[in-house]
């Protein structure tokens, strides 16, 4: 290696967007297995307690579930659009779209708060007297409901933290129209949250 080649190599900042995205996907597969395990538990118990699952699901509010579905689908779109805006060099619009995404995440969480509050108010929460008096299948249904939607909502909160971090980095000039893999990876995480909800919604809210 000549001295000029060496100097060029030293000044080149190491960067691998492709590897970065591939790493993010690998992480998302671990998330698939995490939620997948819970979906398998759900499937087996539903198979064993079909009638009780149907009965327990009547307690959930389909309208709230539907509003949350629409909120997540729309936020997924705005997250994807923020990448397009970034690629086009429109940083202002990209930031605005990220704020809209965060806004929908809050709509989701506020809804979830009211939903859980109503359940707890009616005495339906893990370990409560009212719940333990119900048949096994209903106890299992509500146990899975709290664990799965709870873990999912935790992912919504993490997604919001990622996006706030991204907004800060755009402001600092660390994310630009030709360097935006972190925005892409945060959006990938957000889409996973949406994907999981696509399955949670019919499995918990739409059993009639």
């Amino acid at each position, binding site marked *: 290696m000549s001295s000029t080649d060496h100097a060029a190599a030293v000044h080149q900042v190491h*960067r*691998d*967007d*492709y590897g970065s*995205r*591939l790493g993010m*996907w*690998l992480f998302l*597969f671990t998330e*698939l*297995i995490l939620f*997948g*395990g819970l*979906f*398998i538990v759900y*499937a*087996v118990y539903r*198979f064993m307690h079909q009638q009780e699952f149907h009965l327990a699901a009547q307690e959930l509010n*389909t309208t709230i579930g*539907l509003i949350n*579905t*629409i909120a997540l*689908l*729309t936020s*997924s*779109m705005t*997250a*994807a*659009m923020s990448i*397009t805006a970034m*690629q*086009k060099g429109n940083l202002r619009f990209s930031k605005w779209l990220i704020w809209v995404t965060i806004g929908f995440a809050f709509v989701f969480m506020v809804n979830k708060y009211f939903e859980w509050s109503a359940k707890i108010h009616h005495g339906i929460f893990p370990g409560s007297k009212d719940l333990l008096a119900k048949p096994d299948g209903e106890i299992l249904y509500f146990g899975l409901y709290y664990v799965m939607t709870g873990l999912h909502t935790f992912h919504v909160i993490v997604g919001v933290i990622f996006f706030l971090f991204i907004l800060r980095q755009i402001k600092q000039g660390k994310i630009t129209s*030709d360097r935006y893999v972190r925005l*892409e990876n945060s*959006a*990938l995480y957000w*889409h996973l949250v*949406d*994907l999981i909800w*696509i*399955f949670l*919604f*019919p*499995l918990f809210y*739409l*059993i*009639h």
Partner: protein
Amino acid sequence: MSEHQHQESHVIEYGNYIFIWLGLLAFTGITVTVSGINLGNWTIVIALFIACIKSWYVLNYFMHMKYEEMVFKIFILTALFTFFIFLGFTFWDYSFAR
């Protein structure tokens, strides 16, 4: 400049995203409507089938899987294959154990 840099340039227009979003909303509407009709065990089959279609659109367009290289697709198929082994073997076990 890295050899993979050229892939970054794929830009999906806003209009395409709105189109996909409208499709996803339509599928959600169909799921909710179908759930109101009593189809017995078919209700869950239809609901999951529609959820899979929605996921396919989210994966390919929102998550750009359509525009990624083959290795990404092999990865995701491997992950799904692993998941279905877990699911399949669990049910296989249950159908004999009971």
